């Protein structure tokens, strides 16, 4: 069963067609990779799915419900989290405060009362321990290393227990040791039932981690399947190598 379905999605920026009738599906509890050459429209697809950009045409359905036209906060509230290409955290808040910002289905009471924080704090500390950065819980985000920021961003997104997480280049600018740690955490979270859609240029990372891979070229999905199948697909080779 598909958790996320994208049908005939299109987005144009002036004369540039960034996404051109793109259709793809992300299976429930899968780790799906979205790959393609630079400028193929991967991040634009992310921005369209998460409500950061309005679509020109097409449909986005999450759990069979249309989410096209909703704002990013509403989409997060429905259970779709995302990270950004360059790890984005709140630099003047501590790591723990960064963990407490995410809001999902919160009523007025939760927003204003102080008592409900205790439970959230405990969960935040658990998540920080899970990504192994609990020791910097009291450090402001701006003072963290890039790797710690990456881990903090991932942990914070998980705070509101999203069903689907979109990761934009989780391996970007990360050393091999940390890369393995991130892959391991994604696998663990996936085993707990979280579905991932990730954009990545690091092919060994994608091929080892993903169950399914979708290839984007000039704004269209040109191939999809198991990593091995996709790697041998002539259309994919052509898109990447231009042969």
């Amino acid at each position, binding site marked *: 069963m598909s958790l996320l379905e994208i049908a005939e999605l299109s987005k144009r920026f002036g004369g540039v067609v960034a996404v051109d009738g793109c259709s793809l599906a992300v299976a429930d509890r899968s780790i799906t990779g979205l790959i393609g050459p630079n400028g193929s429209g991967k991040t634009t697809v992310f921005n369209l799915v998460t409500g950061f950009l309005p679509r020109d045409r097409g449909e986005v359905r999450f759990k069979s419900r249309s989410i096209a036209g909703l704002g*990013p*906060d509403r989409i997060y509230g429905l259970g779709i*989290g995302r990270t950004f290409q360059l790890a*984005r955290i709140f*630099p003047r808040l501590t790591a723990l405060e960064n963990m407490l*910002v995410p809001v999902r289905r919160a009523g007025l009471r939760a*927003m204003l009362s102080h008592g409900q924080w205790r439970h959230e704090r405990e969960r935040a500390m658990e998540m920080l321990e899970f990504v192994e950065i609990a020791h910097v819980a009291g450090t402001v985000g701006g003072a963290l290393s890039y790797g710690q920021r990456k881990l903090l961003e991932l942990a914070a997104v998980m705070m509101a227990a999203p069903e689907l997480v979109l990761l934009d280049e989780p391996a970007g600018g990360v050393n091999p040791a940390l890369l393995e740690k991130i892959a391991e955490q994604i696998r663990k979270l996936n085993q707990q039932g979280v579905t991932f859609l990730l954009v990545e240029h690091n092919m060994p990372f994608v091929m080892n981690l993903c169950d399914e891979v979708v290839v984007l070229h000039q704004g269209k999905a040109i191939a999809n399947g198991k990593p091995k199948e996709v790697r041998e697909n002539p259309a994919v080779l052509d898109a990447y190598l231009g042969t």
Partner: protein
Amino acid sequence: MKRKALLLLPVAALAVLLPLVAPDPSTTNIAVFTMMYVGLATAWNIMGGYTGYISLGHAAFFGFGAYALGLIMVHLNITPGYGPFFLVPVVGLLTAVLAVGIGWIALRTRAATFVIVTIAFMFMMQLLAENLVKVTGGGGGLGLPYPHDWGGDFFNTPYYYAMLVLAVLGLLTSWWIRRSKFGLGLLAIRDDEDKALAVGVPTRTFKLTAYVISAVLVGMIGAVYAYYVTYIYPQFVVDPLIGISMVLMAFLGGLGTLSGPVIGALLLEPSQLEFAYRFGASRLYLVFYSAIFLIVILLLPRGIVPSVRDLIGRRRTAKGVT
């Protein structure tokens, strides 16, 4: 926490007992204006300090509050005395309605555009106050009835306590927001608004709520001010300098902190009034304000409270190391 509360106790006692300790009108007059700015800077900080949306037009709400109470008193023939103080929350409600409308439009913009929109809104309010002559009295001003039976040393006292109540209300609101998830959302907006959206913070609702809370407090303070000065003019209540003063005080003390705006107001307002007494009604104090602004920007860009906090933190770390 307990130590902080103990430290605050003498400050609170002094604030409450001030008119009894120093009842002469010149002192209580300074106290009324100082407390007014403690409230204004604290209220402004709820929006500007927490969300990072710098409004230079909050004087519009101050003027609106002043005229709202003035017009209610004049048109409903309210007897002066303690009664008008109970109308201040009504003025707060009216200011809230105005702030929802203005905020709904202004908060569609960000950064410098937001600043400009708030300035434009303030001048619109000033023009309205000047030109709706039949309603506001225009440039001729609007006179409010004042309590004739309050005289001598006592006259300033009720106004001082009214300003104190509003300042404390502002501080409690600010403290409660800072400790809530709503407050954390506001700080997240200040740091990275798009990222805040991505983690589910309903940024528009949060910003509008902060804007309205901030405006309501400023409007209510404007109402008490009008009752105190008894005669109001567009250029003196919808005055850009009032708007800039509250911003400067919050900057000086420390943007986004609870105590910063209080410290800023306690330092700046008495000094400004001292200047006014020494050099007459000239606006020489503006030179003093400019100098303070320069010093803050060059030496204390984050304000007094964060800078002192950093200094103490560094000293503690250094002690721990050696």
